[in-house]
């Protein structure tokens, strides 16, 4: 399963859904024209709509890995140091000068 296939599936699903909507609106205007009542959707349009939704949802959900919902997975893998590091308050007066600096 690849991302590209997922994206294509989403597009196809949305197009199917749009097509269904268009068909239904056409159906209703036709019925209104003939002064018939609108009782229920024809089976093929309903199926088309559901199929479109199913394909789009599959494309969006099944072809990618989701991030873990608990925040802990993210946080537990960080080191202590990264919690204490505040880049906007950075100070350079530490031993780094003697450890890493030029020996000159």
């Amino acid at each position: 399963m690849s991302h590209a296939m997922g994206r294509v599936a989403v597009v196809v699903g949305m197009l199917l859904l749009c097509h269904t909507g268009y068909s239904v609106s056409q159906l209703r205007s036709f019925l209104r024209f003939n002064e018939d009542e609108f009782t229920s959707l024809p089976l093929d349009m309903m199926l088309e709509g559901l199929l479109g939704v199913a394909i789009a949802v599959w494309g969006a959900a099944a072809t990618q890995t989701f991030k873990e919902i608990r925040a802990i997975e993210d946080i537990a893998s960080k080191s202590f140091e990264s919690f204490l590091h505040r880049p906007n308050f950075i100070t350079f007066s530490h031993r780094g000068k003697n450890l890493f600096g030029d020996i000159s």
Partner: protein
Amino acid sequence: MQYSTAPSWQEAREKLRKWREQNERKSDEIVDLWMTSLGSKVSKAGDEKWMIIEQVAIAALDVHNYGVADDLILKLKERFPDSDRVRFLQVLRLQALQRYDDALKGLDAMIQRDNTNSGAYKQKVAILKCQGKNTEAIKELADYLNKFMSDQEGWSELCDLYLAESDYARAAFCAEEMILHNPHNYFVHQRLADIRYTMGGIENTKFASSHYSQALKLNPESMRAYCGLFLSGSSLATNPRVPATEKREYSQIASWAAKEISTRYGENQPPSSNSAEMLEGLFGALQIQ
């Protein structure tokens, strides 16, 4: 840290991006990666190029490698001649060279030009801290936080400054602010618990015990929280002014924490070592009467 085989420039770029997003301060590794893989090929990185250059410039200042730092700051100045961010980098460079007065003058000029520039206020506090002027730094930072109340870094820094001055009550207040911003982060609960435990007294130790428990609920791998829970639980269990029912509860907490610590140390030790007995001995030493 030296790499035995130099990583490709794409790997280096990925690493730098990850460190940028996760706020890591691996300055010597960043400069190393720049010198070995990324330096010559950075023009291929597209839009990310300037952010990478800024990141490496700050890392170079951190390891006091002025050759690389000056070179990169010059590149940035040529590309963005009128940028506040580049001026900020120049102020950082002055700070690294310990020319604090020039740096403060530069920051004051930036603040005058744009008084919503939060970075400039914060760097002023950092420079005062560098010079050892903790009380002035605290005053500046408190003023800043009055204006920009939701700045998490600011509260964290203020907490540290108060701790450096041993003003635990105010440090606890700052740590509580951080919990308000990040209730799901185990680290901030642990911090508050550490401060409260240090303040001492029955109420504070109970408070510490509950926050250590919350930290453990959020992250069951945190050794510091287990040790803290053990210490606060055993200190309450041996305190004469605590009623007997609560004493029993706290000693149960302490022994549970001790068991967890032993199992976790046990899991990470090679099978032949005798560290289990060593640990039991250390627990005895850890009891504070």
